[in-house]
Each structure stands twice: as structure tokens, then as C-alpha cells.
């Protein structure tokens, strides 16, 4: 990633007001996590929050590899899944033997599971970086996923292994049966894991990881072995992925081989990259968005994964910094006060872009309904407007809005670029880096 690597000069003693601001953010997030279920107390939203929390830990752990160390892994779900299985076996063992280990500590077991496997396999894997590493991670991912179906006694075959989270020793009188208690457990671990991972990026080790990402040769010259750094980074990523997997196992009270699979690895890559790998909060945004979309879109459309793929390709091609990158691009303009000159061109581009998006969605949905129903009459309800997939007018509307929207939107996009250049120049003149 070429985007915005924090350099060593960023580390300097911070003023008291700044450190107050820094700790303030964490405190606000913590209070937000506590208050959230009070505001949205329905069962559905509690489940969503729990899943989002787990996705945040998982995506942050992935960013230790992709964003911090520059390792593109296609098999990160291996550690997530193994963490889940470690937790399920531990929970069953605790319940069977009556060990005094309450549930809140159990996710650590998952982390340990992920860490140990990463420590065993990681040394071979991290010998090479770049494309070779990506291919190897894919191969190892497939190896573990396929092996999990063979080793039935450990992984439970197709059906997986179930557990009962209420059978463990209670803590503060909480049985962790109700979803709200599980939510708070997950929220607690989200805080712990996020703080730990943020702290990790601030350590000398975190900085060396960035250096290995940007220039491994130079790192070797100053006396570090990039292989060792990559290996340690890989182990940490496995640790936190294992915690995320363990929380999932607690949340669903089951672990199965789907946790280890390529789909899960793909999703975490999507979440992390869509959110943005260059900033710590990027994967958090991505995890929230992707999980939310996943939960929301599955009920709306059968081809939700296609939309994921299209969003992902769009981000890779036009905004490789992800959502966080787009947001942070505006910071210097905001500081210089030139942001106002860009806003009108954004508003102008909004309508044609929405028309384009609407046209693409209508086209995809029309094809999906048409092929699914084999040409029989089928009505699509899009934004409250009914469309019939078999009538030619629907197809024509889809084509016209897509092409027309694209042509008009492209003009407005050019305006954005021009307005942006002017605003950025203004910001640069005032001494704000842009």
C-alpha cells in the first residue's frame, strides 16, 4: 500500500490537550458500546451489534497483516475458525470437568488457538512476501478447510460441534444465556482487542512492520530480519483472529468448517479493504458496513454477493485508500476552510450518480429475476416502484438509466476533480498538506 504510511517523525511527545483528546475518543467509544443496546433494544439489533463487534476484531486483526505489514492473505479465516474450534472444545471440557473458568475468559483460549497454529505454520509461510505469500495463504487455507472435513473427531464433519455457553461457571451472576449479556461480553472484548491492536501499532515492533511493508531491503540493512518481523506480525494477527472466532463460537454456540473456509477469508478481505487499510479506524468502518450490508441485503436480494464484488472492485479501482482514505483526504481541506468550494460539485454529481446506481441495480435485479423465474412474469419491487422483469420497458429503463446516468455522471465527476484541485491548491497555499 502506498498510501499514508505514518513515518517515524510522527512519534513525538504529545501535548496534554491532545492526549486528553486521544483518551477521550476511547472513552466515548466505550460509553457508546455500553449505551447502544439501551437505545436499540430489539433482539434483531442486538444480534447485529454482536456480529458487527466480532467482525471489527476480525477485520482489525486482518489489517495487522494487510495494512501494517503489507501481507495480502487469502486464508485468514483459518485462524478465526481454529479459534472458534478451540473455544468450543474448551467450553465443552470446562462444562464436563467443572473447571472454575468463567465464560468471559474463554475467548482467550480462541486467541491462543489461533496464535499457536500461526506460530507453527507461519514460519514457512512468511518466508516470502507479496504475491507468493498470497498464493501460499490461499493454499494453506484450502488445506486446512479440506482437512477439517477429514478429521471428524475434532471438527465434527459437516455439521460442526455444538456447545452450551450457559453450562459454564457463572460470573457476577450472569448466565450469558440472554443475547444482551453476550453482547456485553463481545463489546468488552472489542474494546480490549481494539486497544491492544492499536497499542501494537504504536510499539517499535509496529513501526518495524510498517518498514517491512514499505522497504524490506532497507530493514535488513538496519539489522532486522524481515522474515522474523513478518512471522511475528502473522502470529499476532492469528491471535486476534482467534479471539474473534472464539467470540463467534460463543455467540452461535457452534463451530463448523464454514468458519475456516474461503468465503470467510474473502469477507474479511472485503471488509478491511473497503474500510481502508491505511488508517486504524478503516477496518472498523469496513467491518460495520460489510456486516450491515450482509445482514440487510440478504433479505432484500438473492444476488447480494454480486453487489459486494462490484463495490469491492469500485473501491480497488477508484479509491484504493478505502472509505477511511476518502474521509481523510478531506481533512486538510476542512482545516484550510476550502472544503466549501467542493461541496456544490458533490451535490451536482449526486443525482446523476444515483441514477446510474439505480440503473445498474435495476439491470442486475431484472436479469436475476428473469433467469430465476425462467421468463415467467415476475415483479421486482425497487425503491417502492414495481417493475416487471419480463416487459421490455423495464429492460429499456435499466439500459437508458445506466448509460445515460454514466454519461452525465462522468461530466459531473470531472467537475469534482476540477473543484477538488482548486480546493487542494488553496489548502496547500495555506500550509496544510494536501
Amino acid at each position, binding site marked *: 500500500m502506498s498510501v499514508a504510511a505514518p513515518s517515524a517523525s510522527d512519534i513525538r511527545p504529545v501535548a496534554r490537550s491532545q492526549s486528553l483528546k486521544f483518551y477521550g475518543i476511547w472513552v466515548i467509544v466505550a460509553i457508546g458500546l455500553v449505551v447502544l443496546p439501551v437505545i436499540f433494544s430489539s433482539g434483531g439489533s442486538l444480534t447485529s451489534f454482536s456480529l458487527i463487534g466480532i467482525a471489527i476484531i476480525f477485520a482489525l486483526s486482518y489489517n495487522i497483516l494487510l495494512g501494517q505489514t503489507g501481507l495480502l492473505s487469502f486464508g485468514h479465516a483459518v485462524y478465526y475458525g481454529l479459534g472458534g474450534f478451540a473455544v468450543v472444545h474448551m467450553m465443552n471440557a470446562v462444562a464436563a470437568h467443572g473447571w472454575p473458568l468463567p465464560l468471559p475468559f474463554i475467548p482467550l483460549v480462541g486467541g491462543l488457538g489461533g496464535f499457536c497454529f500461526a506460530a507453527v505454520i507461519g514460519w514457512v509461510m512468511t518466508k516470502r512476501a507479496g504475491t507468493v505469500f498470497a498464493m501460499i495463504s490461499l493454499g494453506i487455507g484450502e488445506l486446512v478447510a479440506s482437512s477439517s472435513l477429514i478429521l471428524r473427531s475434532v471438527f465434527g464433519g459437516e455439521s460442526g460441534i455444538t456447545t452450551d455457553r450457559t453450562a459454564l461457571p457463572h460470573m457476577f451472576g450472569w448466565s450469558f444465556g440472554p443475547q444482551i449479556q453476550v453482547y456485553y461480553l463481545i463489546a468488552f472484548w472489542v474494546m480490549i482487542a481494539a486497544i491492544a491492536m492499536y497499542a501494537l501499532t504504536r510499539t517499535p515492533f509496529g513501526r518495524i512492520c510498517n518498514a517491512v511493508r514499505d522497504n524490506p531491503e532497507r530493514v535488513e540493512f538496519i539489522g532486522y530480519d524481515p522474515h522474523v518481523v513478518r512471522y511475528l506480525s502473522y502470529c499476532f494477527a492469528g491471535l486476534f483472529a482467534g479471539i474473534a472466532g472464539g467470540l463467534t463460537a460463543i455467540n452461535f454456540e457452534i463451530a463448523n468448517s464454514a468458519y475456516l473456509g474461503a468465503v470467510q477469508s474473502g469477507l474479511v478481505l472485503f471488509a478491511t479493504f473497503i474500510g481502508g487499510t491505511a488508517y486504524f479506524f478503516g477496518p472498523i468502518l469496513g467491518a460495520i458496513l460489510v456486516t450491515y450490508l450482509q445482514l440487510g441485503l440478504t433479505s432484500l436480494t438473492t444476488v447480494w454477493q454480486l453487489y459486494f464484488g462490484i463495490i469491492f472492485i469500485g473501491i480497488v479501482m477508484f479509491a484504493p485508500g478505502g472509505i477511511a482514505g476518502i474521509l481523510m483526504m478531506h481533512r486538510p481541506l476542512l482545516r484550510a476552510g476550502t472544503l466549501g468550494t467542493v461541496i456544490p460539485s458533490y451535490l451536482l454529481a449526486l443525482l446523476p450518480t444515483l441514477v446510474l446506481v439505480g440503473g445498474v441495480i435495476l439491470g*442486475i435485479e431484472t436479469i436475476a429475476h428473469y433467469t430465476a423465474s425462467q421468463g415467467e412474469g415476475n415483479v421486482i419491487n425497487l425503491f417502492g416502484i414495481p417493475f416487471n422483469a419480463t416487459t421490455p420497458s423495464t429492460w429499456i429503463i435499466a439500459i437508458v438509466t445506466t448509460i445515460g446516468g454514466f454519461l452525465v455522471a462522468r461530466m459531473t465527476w470531472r467537475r469534482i476533480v476540477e473543484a477538488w484541485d482548486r480546493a487542494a491548491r488553496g489548502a496547500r497555499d495555506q500550509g496544510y498538506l494536501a
Partner: protein
Amino acid sequence: MLELIVISTLNGILFGMLLFLLSSGLTVIFSMMGVLNFAHASFYMLGAFFGYQLTKWIGFWPALVLAPLLVGAVGMAVERYGLRNTHKHGHVAELLLTFGLAFVIEEVVSMIWGKSPVDYRVPAILDFPAFTLFSTNYPAFKIFMLAVSVLIFVVLLIVLKRTRVGLIVQAALTHPNMVAHLGHNVGRVFMVVFGVGCALAGVAGVIAGPALVTQSDMAGLLGPILFVVIVFGGLGSLPGAFIASLVIGLVQTFGVALNGSLASAFGPLDPSLGPSVLSDIWNVTIAQIAPILPYVLLVLILIFRPMGLMGTRES
């Protein structure tokens, strides 16, 4: 036993040649552009589905020519409008683009043709047993597949080694700037090479479709094996890809054909021990672990020869 060996060898070489049709394109694209085309297996799948659809409309033989051309056109469009624009963001972005593309292609295919296998049949003219070997009828279509793969292999070799076009392509692999200075449009060379690589994958899809299952998950099943092949052979090495294709093809075919397990070799475990990891390993047959054998080979080669069989490139 001899029958098993002969038939499995034939099938293994066939599967290996099929893998080579895919891995050769992937390798040439990789050594030229530094891009590992994650969507390569998806182009193979597109070939199979285009072949199926065109066979339904205009027959198998025109489809055999048209479907790869279509796939090649899709590939060129991807290079021209996707990869070329992403190039400035680096190789990781390019790899991610093709990853997203593989995802989208799979979704589009399952959206249009459904998730269940389509009825892509062997053309009637090739639907007869070519010869009978120890009581097993060997289908003529498989011989046809083998012939097509070998033919393309030979043509590719001649084009790359003996023609002017091949010379330019080879030069553009190592010295793109010099080739551009000599007046060749390197961008177009890249586009055409990418298109040809994808078209080769398309050919593989058209001829493999009737013999294997044509389904929207076929790219996802073959893709990882393909990457094992090119890492095993050494990234960027065409001879390495050839050997690795054959090795993986043979290993997988023999693996599926053999039915032995530790239990059958050394006798069953004491049943009083109950189910455990040991009993899982003891009772699993070679046929069951055949799908993971390529990945085991991958791990082994990484430990003992990290750059692959014939690889030189450090990346």
C-alpha cells in the same frame, strides 16, 4: 492393477494437460505484467458456460472457436479498462482487482445459469469409446481433449520460440521499455497477451465442460489448484508450470483411484479406543485425501525449495 495404472496415467496426463492450458496463460501473464490473475479460473468457467450456451445455439464446433474468442475479448477488456488503470496503485491492488473480478464472475454466472450444473453434453460425433483397454472403454472425447491440449501446447511453443510475434512478446517480458523504444506498442502487446491467456483458459473450459461438471463453483474448485501448480513449478517459469501441471494432474488422479488406507494396510485399530484424531487418520482412504494432496505438495515444496521447482524469480 496394471489396468488401474494405465488408465490413471492416461487420465492424469489429460488432467495435467488441461491444467497446463490454464497455467501456461497464467504464467505468461504473470511474467509479463507481474500480475497474478486471480480470475484465471473464472475465465475457464466462462469458457465452459459460453461453450455450453453456444453449443445449444449453433453447435459444438463453432462454439469451440467462438467461445474462446469471446472469453479472450472479455479478458482484453479487463486488461484495458481495469488492470491498466489499477497498475499505478501497485501489484497488490491489481491482484485484488482480479480477486474481486473472480467473485463477480462467479456471481454473474450463477445468476444467469443458476447454481446447479448445466446439461453440457459431449457432442454426438465424439460420443463413442475410442478403444477398449482391459475391459475399460476409453471415451473418444477424452482423446480429443488430449489432442487439443497437445496441439495448443505445440502451437504456443512454436509461436513463442520461432516467430517474430513471439520474439516481441519475449522481449517485452524482460525489457518493456526497450521494446517500446523500438516502436512497438507495449500496452497493446500486454492487452493481447492477457487476452490470449484468457482465451486459452476459455478453450480449456469449452473442452473440459462436457467431461467434468459445468457448474458455477467450478472456478472456485479449480482456482486454488491452479495457484498451487504455478507456485509449485516456480512463478514465471513455463517449463516449471508444465512439469507441475503433469505432477499435480497425476497425483490427483492416482489419489482418487487408490482406495487404500492405513487401516487396510495395517489392520483396523482397537475399537475400544473410540473415535479420535488417530482413528480419523487411520481410517481415511487415499481417495478421500486426494483433494488435499496438491496443498500438501505445496507445503513440502515451500519447506524444501521455496522458489518452486524451476523458479528463479524472487518476488
